[in-house]
């Protein structure tokens, strides 16, 4: 337990105004502050809570792409080779780890007799660094020299919903703002015609827990994630009503603008009213900007193939990865992609069949992820983009029903690539069989602190006053994974 303070510095008047939400919009409050003469016209000089803000600490990464492997991928079958697990295959946990104690799994009490199960996948070395990756990820394997693997991340819950909340918000209980909210709260966004925090779900459904995974919790709605769909219109209600032409909509908007300007004449200086007029114009521009941003049809065939859009099994996740690159190019701050949706084997939750399940999900994401890394790199965007790969927990080295694996918050492998991260290395380790952390254990909050640091935010200083407490993504502060930083 570290003793970093979680009670922040007494807040300034500016902070108070921004945080107290005194019944006026935070947006307007910013503009109301006498010492900050701010223009309120969105398109020209962005102001307000989503205006870009300088980082607290100089940093390389400007955007984050978080690849969320929902359901919990198995570390020992993907990026954490375990010779010990081969050695003890079929033996009990007690044989391998005499001090492990009783193994508690989500599926219920597992007697000591449930055998360890070696990975059915072979591992091989890749790149100059020679880091080993399983045969599930041959394409990602090609990128290992750009990737920093952290094989010793642990969390607090072996239950999907709390574990998802913890990975996304730092708290196992629902109601805290998600990481994307914190990052946009701290840095704003570079593009005012698009949401700063975009979430793309799996077509099979959302994750357990739903919207709270990308909600802004106690922060204003400004910072909540906007769900972009990969088919049809990108954002809810993005298209004008049925049968409404652009000319008709523009004419309605102009009339609305006139009425609003007339209304403002007798209410001078009310920046809330002005902001709302701007929001309508922004929404209008978003109708154009969002479809353009996610329209991958103009990409070359070579690019599409690089992301796997030409194969049915990789097309969906490939499209999301390609959309993510386009959003990064357009200045969107935080993008989260989900692989896996709904329940059971539609997610990485391989209780019954690790081979079938992981082949399917790795098979649909391996090429797209590698394509994303390579495409970002050749465009010079990887330096300014942090790519994170994680699930809500890892999986057990013992078998479940002979061929599956149960949830394991004790250790998982998370990897990062790009802005601010030193690739070509594997940090930390799991124990001999991959049951719990071994060397250099890092809690999820340490990962959060590190992600924030990569985009130039200090997790201790990034606070938001709520419930009489200066809240943080990392609660009492996380320990930076220093070895990961370039």
């Amino acid at each position, binding site marked *: *337990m570290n003793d*970093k303070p979680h009670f922040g*510095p*007494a807040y300034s008047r500016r902070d108070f*105004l921004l945080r*107290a*939400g005194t*019944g*006026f*919009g*935070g*947006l307007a409050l910013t503009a*109301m502050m*006498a010492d900050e003469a701010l223009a309120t016209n969105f398109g020209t000089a962005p102001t307000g809570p989503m205006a870009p803000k300088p980082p607290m600490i100089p940093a390389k990464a400007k955007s984050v792409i978080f690849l969320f492997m929902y359901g919990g991928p198995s570390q020992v079958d993907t990026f954490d080779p375990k010779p010990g697990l081969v050695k003890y295959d079929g033996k009990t946990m007690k044989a391998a780890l005499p001090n492990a104690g009783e193994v*508690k799994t989500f599926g219920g009490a597992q007697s000591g007799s449930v055998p360890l199960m070696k990975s059915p996948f072979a591992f091989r070395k890749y790149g100059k660094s020679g880091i080993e990756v399983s045969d599930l990820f041959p394409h990602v394997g090609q990128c290992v020299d750009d990737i920093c693997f952290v094989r010793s991340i642990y969390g607090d*819950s072996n*239950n999907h*919903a709390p574990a998802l909340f913890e990975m996304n918000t730092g708290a196992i*209980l*629902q109601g805290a703002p998600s990481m994307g909210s914190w990052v946009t709260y701290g840095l704003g966004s570079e593009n005012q015609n698009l*949401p700063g925090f975009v979430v793309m*779900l799996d077509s099979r*459904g*959302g*994750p*357990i*827990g*739903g*919207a*709270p995974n990308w909600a802004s919790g*106690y922060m204003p*709605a*400004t910072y909540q994630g906007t769900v972009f*769909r990969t088919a049809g219109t990108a954002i*809810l*209600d993005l298209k*004008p*009503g049925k049968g409404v032409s652009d*000319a008709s*909509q523009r*004419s*309605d*908007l102009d009339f*609305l603008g006139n*009425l*609003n300007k007339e*209304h*403002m004449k007798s*209410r001078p200086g009310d920046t*809330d009213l002005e*902001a*709302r007029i701007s*929001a309508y114009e*922004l*929404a209008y521009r*978003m*109708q154009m900007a969002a479809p353009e941003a996610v329209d991958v049809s103009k990409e070359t065939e070579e690019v599409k193939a690089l992301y796997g859009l030409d194969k049915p099994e990789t097309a969906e996740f490939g499209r999301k990865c390609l959309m993510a690159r386009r959003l990064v190019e357009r200045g969107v701050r935080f993008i989260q992609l989900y692989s896996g949706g709904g329940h059971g084997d539609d997610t990485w939750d391989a209780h019954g069949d690790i081979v079938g399940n992981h082949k399917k999900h790795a098979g649909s994401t391996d090429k797209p992820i590698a394509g994303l890394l390579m495409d970002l790199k050749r465009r010079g965007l990887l330096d300014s983009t942090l790519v994170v790969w994680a699930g809500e927990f890892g999986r057990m080295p013992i078998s479940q029903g002979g061929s599956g694996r149960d949830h394991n918050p004790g250790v998982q492998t998370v990897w990062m690539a790009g802005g601010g991260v030193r690739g070509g290395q594997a940090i930390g380790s799991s124990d001999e069989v991959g049951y719990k952390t071994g060397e250099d254990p890092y809690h999820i909050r340490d990962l959060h602190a590190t992600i924030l640091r990569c985009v130039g935010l200090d997790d201790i200083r990034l606070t938001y006053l709520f*419930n*009489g*407490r200066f809240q943080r993504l990392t609660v009492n502060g996380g320990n930076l994974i220093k070895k990961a930083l370039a």
Partner: protein
Amino acid sequence: MSEKRFRSLIYLIPLAALLLASSLATSSDAAKSVSYRESIEPIFKSECSGCHNKASASGGFSLETPELLRKGGVKFGEKVIIPGKPAQSILVGYLRGTHQPRMPIGLPPLPENKIRLIEDWIAQGAKVDEVKLGWPYAPPAPVTPPALPRTGLTDFTKKWARNDVDRFILAKLNANGLQPAPSASKGVLLRRVYLDVVGTPPTPEEADAFLLDKSPDAYEKLVNRLLDDPRYGERWARHWLDLVRYAETHGFEADNIRPRAWRYRDYVIRALNSDKPYDRFLKEQIAGDELYPQDSDAWIATGFLRLGAYDELATDPPQRRQDILNDATDTLSSAVLGMTVGCARCHDHKYDRISQRDYYRLQAFFVNTKWVDQKLPVEVDAASLIQKRNTLKDQTQKLNLAIDQIRSDVRKALGKNDADDDAIDKWLQDASRKDKKAEWDRLRGEEGDTQRQLRPIEATAETVTDTGKEVPSHHVLLRGNLATPGDPVQPGFIAALSEGREKDAVITAFPDKPTSGARTALANWVASPKNPMTARVIVNRLWQHHFGNGLVSTASDFGRNGEKPRYPGLLDWMAQELPRHGWSLKAMHRLILNSATYRQIVAVNPKAEKLDLQNRLFWRQNRQRLEAEAIRDGMLAVSGGLNDQRGGPGIYPAVSDEVLATGSTHKWGSSPEDQQRRRTIYVFQRRSLPLPMVEVFDGPDMVNSCTRRNATTIAPQALTMFNGDFGWSEARRFAERLATEGNSDSRIEKAYRLALVRRPTPEEKKQVAAFLEKKKTLHLREGMTDPKKVEFTAWTEFCHVLFNTNEFVYVD
């Protein structure tokens, strides 16, 4: 001046001085003595004790207590403070950077005024004063509303005050050289008070009833009418439901339905409409099962203690139990006592006088509670609901008779009197018994459906009671961790709110009840005029909703991190008026609504803005953005589509498949079309799926106690309002409503009266007419041929624009 008035004036001189001292003027007075407790300790705690605390004591130095501070640093063996000599005190040196490293290390230096305070304090001898129970922990002292100021009044301000509230406001404004704003026009007041009190705009008929009433007390009569209107409860219950994080599902992964949670929502509406005394309202929610077991509403009220989120699939049930206890403790404290105690879960509160022991002593009141689904002793439902229930029960009975008939027939045929349903089912599988089998399946299916419909409307509530008579006992949990219990504690009240003494509660069991009486002791302490917080907190909340901001703007945190009240006298006076009026919330509403302060215009006043940009002194009324519920309800009311049916299980407005696809376990029901058009407070509250329109307009997250809605302005709101189906369907209904009016001119007039509660100006009528023509031409050009459709489409678009105007969603 009467003698009485004169006396009260003398009495008030110290008060006026106090008001002045705490006024906005912040001239620093060098001779003023600096209090360690008031000024210095907070700086140390917030700026320094993150590192220099007992546990870590960076540099061998801690300033967590005055003794440790005097002792100084172990590392260098130096005293850091030399009383009377700030320049020689190295503490100051570190803060000023003459000693390196400058403190606080790695952070910007302290502001000059804070360093100067520390220097002044050292110069004055670095004395440590006694711990005082300052505001807000001391109970309100008797206050008399100030008399009119003797100087500085103009002819306007002399006549401005209408009631005692205004006297407080006027005195302070006058002392700051400010004037209050004049009263808004009848038209503006009409719209304001309707949206504020009942949450929908008035109909033209309701408007005329007020506008044409020329009697001097027309406004006061309107206020009375609205407070008696059942829509008042529907509007104001929502504010309370925000505080208690009301929802109708458990949250987390499965997010299953709490089928009768809606009873709590209806209870709050009923309580507010009947003006249930606030002390009783609280007692029922904390200990209704013990105090009023014959009262159905008191049982329903205890649902307050089980409204929090609940992880059905938790793998660590003791931890879940602890999470629920924490949630109940935190919510009671912030919602009712205005204190954020959550910090004390792990350690003594760094800012407020709440110890970790206090936290677990408060929590101890709840440790023996259990959840029970209680049959209601007395009927509370509307006649229509009772009838529906009886009909369903009759159906069930008939179905069961028919099912039993088949059972006995089959059993006879089988010759087995104890054949179970599986056996019966098996026997019926035979092709020759196809018809009988079909009948059996149909009856059983119908019986299941009927049960499902019956379940949420049975006369049963989701309540809590004690596990037994045993008095609860608890432990301090070190670092908040269940695995490391510390000292045992008994139920007791927060010491700072009990004259600073840690006292265990005196708990008296009820001889005839299977409960401990612990929560009754808590309820009596909370709902007492002697409790320093309870009344202050609720009157401040009422004020907040009427003005968009409280007298204390941090309405759930009256502690040190909260805002100090600018009107401590007014707050304390109102807090004492509440029990004097039998804890009637309506009396408090009346006091506020009838004040000149409330009736002010949303004035523009450069002088006042320079001094008090945020209007913390209430020199004008605030313009407020309507909440999601009032926007949606307003659109329904204006279109004529609103179904004003009250109470009962939650309804499901249509939600697009795209939204449903964002979760893994969403279960969204369907309601008949007319049910979908009920007020938003009746919309089913699913934790993993808030109604998108409510969510985008800053709806509560249903997990945290929500003190005040944010009022953000974001583009997705514009998309919802301008492109969403709901806006268009209500615009069409609105246009249909107008179509019954005679000519175009009177339709425009009606539209403005309905939506904006005023008549259009001649200029506006011209603009609207021009817009309609323009749109008709456009539609013809775009190939629309049916002239009726062209006409109707243009009117729909006009109505749609009205819903989207700033004037519709903001209240002056």
